[in-house]
């Protein structure tokens, strides 16, 4: 028997195509793991068994009949529970979306299914993608697969954990300020946030529309590149998706030319765990040995990132989450009272503490009299950050940094200290605000074995450089 948990997406497709195994067998194994190990981790909110088995059978039929199969044929994939998938609960980790079953597929889903991928489940997440530990879920926290008393990171904790655990070779999360890269770092897998507009947001339940990006998670670079190639590109349903001529990533992973890589001093300042620093330094020296050149750079706006993010993102969220009002779907409380009571009671009991905190923050910064001082000012600083990156990428191909200041922390450790929690995203937020791509590569570990990720950031739509540097590190 093949060792499913160690198989890459490419291996799985190959095994199915050559009839070493059937897609149904693969999918059954994935679902079995999701129901056992996944349950232990609390990684899934919903397992999409019916449709998954139907999709697998279609793949097997194609193989039997000799029909061409897609590049992800029979590959089990998990989706974060804020991505719309017809007929299955889309909870966003929130009580307020109780029993909400969307009647339409996200563009991501359409593209995955047309590549013959199989969606096996919807993963647990911080409520509405707000959090860095996956502790803010109505469905309870997700455990880190290798250190069960520790967090898997967030907000895409369930997706990262299910890939790390071997339940699926590929999963999608969503990024707003680091929600895929940080959990990828904590769980020891690859996570890549595309350029803003890289993957269609149609069907992704919005948190902060101007930085939200659907982002893939994988255990190896080739799988990551393959699934990105399948899902990227312009979508007429998303006005902010970009018509970019994406290269054939999976076939262009090898690179002969040497990189020029920037080391931004602001990312190696106070608050960085020495063990994390050591891993990044080791990565730098390996790349130096391989002939790549490094230059010291400065990104002075870096320390404004968290502040800007916690104005812009909550502002957009306060509007995006207004639709959850008990009128049309999901939870409704006090429906027989006055309208205002129904709104108040529904939202008071439907949203968790962190979501309420951000809605209030966002409402405040958009309020008349405060708008200029907060939202407008933050938008200007954000523009400066974007320019700063643009300037730097004239001189370098990539920027290297830690993904997160620390390895995975303990469940409960930061939950009562929002500011400490927010700072755990300090290194991932800038790329999100600037709309540029960044990847977290599992590279070393702390002395106790906790995974540590190294982050590379590239200029807009230069995902290819990220895949290529990741491929070098993988070897």
């Amino acid at each position, binding site marked *: 028997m093949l060792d499913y948990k160690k198989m890459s997406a490419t291996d799985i497709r190959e095994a199915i195509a050559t009839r070493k195994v059937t897609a149904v067998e693969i999918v059954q194994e994935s679902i079995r793991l999701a129901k056992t190990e996944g349950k232990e981790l609390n990684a899934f909110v919903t397992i999409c068994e019916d449709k998954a088995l139907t999709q697998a059978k279609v793949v097997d039929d194609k193989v039997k009949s000799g029909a061409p199969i897609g590049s992800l044929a029979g590959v089990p994939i998990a989706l974060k529970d804020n991505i719309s998938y017809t007929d299955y609960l889309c909870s966003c980790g929130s009580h307020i979306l109780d029993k909400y079953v969307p009647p339409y597929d996200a563009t991501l889903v359409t593209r995955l299914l047309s590549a013959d991928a199989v969606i096996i489940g919807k993963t647990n997440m911080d409520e509405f993608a707000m959090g860095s530990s996956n502790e803010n879920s109505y469905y309870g926290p997700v455990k880190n697969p290798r250190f069960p008393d520790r967090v898997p990171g967030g907000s895409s904790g369930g997706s990262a954990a299910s890939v790390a655990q071997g339940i699926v070779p590929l999963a999608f999360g969503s990024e707003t300020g680091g929600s895929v890269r940080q959990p990828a770092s904590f769980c020891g897998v690859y996570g890549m946030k595309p350029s803003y507009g890289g993957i269609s947001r149609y069907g992704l339940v919005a948190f902060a529309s101007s930085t939200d990006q659907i982002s893939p998670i994988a255990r190896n670079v080739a799988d990551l590149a393959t699934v990105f190639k399948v899902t990227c590109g312009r979508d007429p349903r998303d*006005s902010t998706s970009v018509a970019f001529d994406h290269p054939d990533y999976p076939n262009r992973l090898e690179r002969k030319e040497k990189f020029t890589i920037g080391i931004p001093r602001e990312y190696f300042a106070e608050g960085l765990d020495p063990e994390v620093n050591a891993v990044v330094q080791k990565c730098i020296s390996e790349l130096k040995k391989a002939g790549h050149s490094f230059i010291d750079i400065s990104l002075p706006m870096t320390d404004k990132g968290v502040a800007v993010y916690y104005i812009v993102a909550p502002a957009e969220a306060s509007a995006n989450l207004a639709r959850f009002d008990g009128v049309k779907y999901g939870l409704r409380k006090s429906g027989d009272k006055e309208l205002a009571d129904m709104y108040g009671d529904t939202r008071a009991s439907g949203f968790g503490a962190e979501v309420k905190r951000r809605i209030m923050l966002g409402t405040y910064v958009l309020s008349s009299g405060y708008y200029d001082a907060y939202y407008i000012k933050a938008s200007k600083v954000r523009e400066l950050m974007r320019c700063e990156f643009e300037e730097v990428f004239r001189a370098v191909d990539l920027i290297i940094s830690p993904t997160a200041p620390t390895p995975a922390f303990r469940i409960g450790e930061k939950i009562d200290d929002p500011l400490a929690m927010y700072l755990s995203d300090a290194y991932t937020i800038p790329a999100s605000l600037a709309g540029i791509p960044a990847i977290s590569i599992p590279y070393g570990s702390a002395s106790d074995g906790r995974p540590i990720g190294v982050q590379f950031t590239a200029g807009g739509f230069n995902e290819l450089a990220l895949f290529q540097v990741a491929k070098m590190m993988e070897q």
Partner: protein
Amino acid sequence: MVGYQGEEKLSVVNGFEPVIGLEVHAQLATDTKIFCSCRSSYGEPPNTLTCPVCLGLPGALPVLNKKAVEFAMRMILATGGQIQPRSVFARKNYFYPDLPKGYQISQFDKPVGLDGVIKYRLESGEEKVCRLIRIHLEEDAGKSLHPEAGEAYTRVDLNRCGTPLIEIVAHADIRSPQEAYAYLLKLKQILQYTGVCTGDMEKGHLRCDANVSVRPEGQEKFGTRTEVKNMNSFKGVERALNYEITRQIELIRSGGSVTQATLLWDEKRGVAEMMRTKEESHDYRYFPEPDLVNLVVSHDWMEEVRRNLPELPDARAERFVSAYGIREYDAQVLTATRDLADYYEEVVTHAGDPKAASNWVQTELLGVINAAGENIATYKVRPNMLGELISKIGSGELSGKMAKIVFEEMTVSGRKAGEIIKEKGLVQISDDTAILKIIDEILAASPDNVAKYRSGKTNVFGFFVGQVMKATKGQANPEMVNKLLKEKLDG
């Protein structure tokens, strides 16, 4: 409080001058909605014209309808405004059950159109100008159907959700309810001419809010204003304004002062009631809509829309005067709607006589259409039919009286003039010898009257005309009868 009392003309009342600024929402007559491809239509079963986008389902995203932008551009150009090369959509945040996203996508500080003017004319003929501040694009909300007696819930119909709107915001240049009424009529005329909006206020295709204040005559500074909403006809706007102006003046004259507030007009009771004061007003927390990119209008696109702009009502009326030689008043009437003007022009091409066409269209045709509540664009008497009929008067084939008989028959059967004339045997006798023969017989039969006439009692002339017409069953050409009779009797 005394309700609206009558049709008194308010411009300066008891030493106070009203100051009125109108905000008009016009539903664009596009086939589909502004941010999705759902059909935009009125009167369909509730919640049948919806999709994830206009339902505001989690994850769905708006995509701007190019046609809606073009319609807005037409109106901006038609009013002489400035299309902005770059404009921005914004979210207007408020909670209401018929607003499924919890915000309306609108435009705020960077609208698609700025400036422009509406030139309009009062009933007295006096010309007025109202300057526009802006024209912006936005989406309509759904409809709340509030409970009737015995029902427990308000129901929500989201068919209207996402219908494209433009909001036309005017300066406070209007000084009386009559001006407001005339301004709205003109606005509706331009909207209809450009095909931007049907202008049907009763169906809610056109909606109007008014900012109203009064100030002592001669004072420059505006008084405190109120906003009056929920007027659903042009006459309703005039009534509501009369009511509110009277209320404000009475309030000030009795020593009180106006407080800034929003009022709701109750058409049935003829009163406007307080909805909310300034303190209770919404903070809409506008911010740029991150789901849409900036709206960029290229110079080429703008020129294309300008080229395709139809002739506007004022220009058309001027052309009617110069090209057809009709009076300005008639030209105004005939250009009131694009359909009527189109109809008239086609009648002219067939009738050959623009003045006769003008009379026929205004008196005969509009008389019938208005009485029957018909639509001129689809009315069974088509302009070529009417034009042909008129041409038969010009050629002498029919008398005016006969033509009216034929026209009456047309309005019943919708048949062409030729068929009706043939069937009824309605051929005018314009043959000299035939008419002279009848005249001779009649004169011979009434020697007394001939003698009377010749002795100076010329009022018997009418008797002879009547006799000739009777003898010819009304088919003798009356002009010829007159002429020949005169020659015979005077000769």
